[in-house]
């Protein structure tokens, strides 16, 4: 009788311990899953962030390409203007300069 009563109690206690262990293990597993989720969520946000920066970067690229194009055009135009002005001026003064050069060459200081 006494032996039988003790056995029943022990069985109950063992069951309680097992249930306790199950509860703790479940919590631990949830924790692991949660940490894994943290990594997954972080990676997702990272991908979004990267996509955002990539978009901004591509915009910067296309903007700068447009800028470069405009700069090149302006530079070419300025260069052509300078050269045109140079040629115009050269033509304007050429005869005088040549005459001056020849006059210097043929003027001997003694």
């Amino acid at each position, binding site marked *: 009788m006494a032996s039988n009563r003790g056995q029943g*109690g022990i069985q109950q206690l063992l069951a309680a311990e097992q249930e306790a262990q199950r509860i703790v293990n479940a919590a631990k597993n949830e924790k692991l899953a949660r940490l894994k989720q943290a990594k997954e969520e972080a990676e997702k*946000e990272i991908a979004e962030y990267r996509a955002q920066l990539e978009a901004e970067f591509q915009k910067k690229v296309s903007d700068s390409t447009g800028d470069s194009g405009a700069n090149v055009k302006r530079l070419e135009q300025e260069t052509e203007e300078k050269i045109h002005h140079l040629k115009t001026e050269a033509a304007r003064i050429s005869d005088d300069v040549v005459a001056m050069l020849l006059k210097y060459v043929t*003027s001997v200081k003694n």
Partner: protein
Amino acid sequence: MKDADVSRQIQQMIRFIRQEAEEKANEISVAAEEEFNIEKLQLLEAEKRKIRQEYERKAKQIDVRRKIEYSTQLNAARIKVLQAQDDAMGSMKDAAKKGLLRVSNDKKVYKKLLKDMIVQGLLRLREPSVLLRCRESDRKLVESLIEEAKKEYSEKASMQSPKISLDDRVYLPPPPKNGAVDSHEPYCSGGVVLASEDGKIVLENTLDARLDVIFRQKLPEACKEAPVRLNNITAI
């Protein structure tokens, strides 16, 4: 001990065990949430920093590449302008070179000029004995001018009349053929080269050499003031 007491004790122990387990599970859950946030933030922060640095580097590369590109283009543009400038100067010099041909073809003008250039050379050298070299086509003319030049030199320098030896073995190059001043054939548009007897001092007083000197020294000034200064030429 009564059965009821034993049973009550066992139930109490069971409740205690469960309570302990639930408390521990709760601690684990709380820790999980904390570590979740920490882990996520750490990952996010680290990766974001890397990505930001990556894109900053890319942006810098673009800026650098763009600056290099613009700098290259700017440089090319400058060279283009300088080339046009050089071409313009070259055209003027070529025109002047062609003009030199007319100078030596004008016999009267050229005769006086040649004498003056010889005298100038003598004055610069101030040597008692001088070797003179000229174009073969000018030889007769030069021979006819030597005595006059010596006399003028003596007067101006208050020096004894120098000895002038006309080199009859080596001559200066001939005039440019067909007025082709841009050919690579050596040519001489006129003038003389004088040298000291030992050959250590050489004075090149040819029209071409004079043009080169004047071109380098006077052209920038000439281009700026050409229309005005034309009437105020000072000789070299």
